[in-house]
């Protein structure tokens, strides 16, 4: 085995070095390497699609940066949506949640309201 039983230590390393053989590991690594290489160098959304709409590649990269940030921010918010924000909202509230625990500025009060909301939700679920 390449790493040996002492290499990474524990059962995981033993699994990789003995059960999944080094040759297979190398094959998997090469496969991922080739795929990433193809994606990194040869696949370009700009060349295939966006060059009709965006003037230069630099501009495209800048827009891609900002789009990455926007998509990331939206995902992080939407994935766990009903939450009381730790960041200051400037008096704004998501539609339909005004007056609920989501828009309560007082954190202790919001926690109580959340418990109430959660128990009510559970009671509704239990009735169903």
């Amino acid at each position: 085995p390449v790493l040996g039983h002492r290499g990474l230590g524990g059962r995981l390393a033993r699994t990789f070095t003995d059960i999944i053989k080094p040759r297979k590991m190398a094959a998997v690594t090469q496969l991922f390497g080739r795929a990433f290489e193809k994606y990194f160098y040869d696949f370009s959304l700009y060349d295939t699609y966006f060059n009709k709409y965006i003037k230069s590649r630099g501009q495209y990269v800048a827009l891609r940066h900002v789009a990455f940030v926007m998509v990331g921010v939206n995902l992080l918010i939407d994935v766990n949506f009903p939450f009381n924000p730790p960041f200051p909202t400037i008096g704004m509230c998501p539609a339909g949640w005004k007056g609920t625990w989501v828009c309560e500025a007082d954190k202790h009060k919001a926690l109580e309201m959340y418990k109430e909301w959660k128990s009510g939700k559970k009671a509704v679920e239990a009735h169903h």
Partner: protein
Amino acid sequence: SLQTAVPRVFGSILGRAPVALGQSVLSSSSSSFKSQGFNGTLQSIDEHVYAQAFSTSSSAQDEKQISSNAAAGIKLPGMAGSMLLGKARTGLRSASMIPFAAQQTMNMSTAPQVQSGATVNSLLIGIYRFWRSQAPMEKPHAPVDDRMLPAIIDASDKRAAIGTWASALFCTILASNLLGLVPTNEAPTSGLGFATGLGVSVWATATALGLYKLGFSFPGHFIPGGTPWPMAFIFVPLETISYSFRAVSLGVRLWVNMLAGHTLLHILTGMALALPFSLSFFAMVPATFAVACLLSALVGLEYLVAVLQSGVFSILSTVYVGEFNSVKLAGPLAKVVKKL
């Protein structure tokens, strides 16, 4: 001579340099060695050199001469007489017949082999030479020849290794600063103890060097040149304060720069999150786009700050330590001057 011939032949076949220290000498001028009484074994190279140096004849006398020289502290120039290369390999050489493969194995370096011209090496060489260039040696008034050479070596011995220290500081701080820009990481230099610890350490290094160099006349460093002596009573306390504040300012500059930028990013990201949190999607996109542009630009600025502050810290370190780094070059005390 079969013993020495075999590695040489194999070495040429494998396209590698001959293995042992003495062998390059041997392969280049073996005939002259032969004519000078060299008996052809590797183990006798050191003794041969000693014999050349002290011109004794028999090997028994050589041994005595070597031991007495070693006792007297006379050593060969360079590494030839050093404990590392001289003594450590004697055991290997004096073993008469060990297999060739074992010889090769023993002669292989355990240090990792590096590719010459590698990017990291070139980069580090450039970095080191830059920081070394911040504390250049003064040009001596006498021409540098073999008469002057001991004084040059002495002067470079007496100088602090500012190039090395500044390079180490630069690499450490740069790596720490850039760690703050890697996802799920924060910069160690945005911690008070880390950053100011580095600053105080550099200041203490400079002060220790100054005390070592100047001794009790250390406060004299705080008097500008050409000042009348009564002014010293005013100058020295004031200069001491400003000098001591460097211990604080050097580290705090780094700390605050790494902390303030990240704090600003925290605040602005929070304000940016308020928009997609509370607005509907179509109302949110243009506003969030603008804020995301601003945030990206600020992260780019943080990259600039991370590189810049590590440079500023190291530059100031060279300045602070370099204040006490001037060395009086010990030129020749007597010289033979030719008159035209």
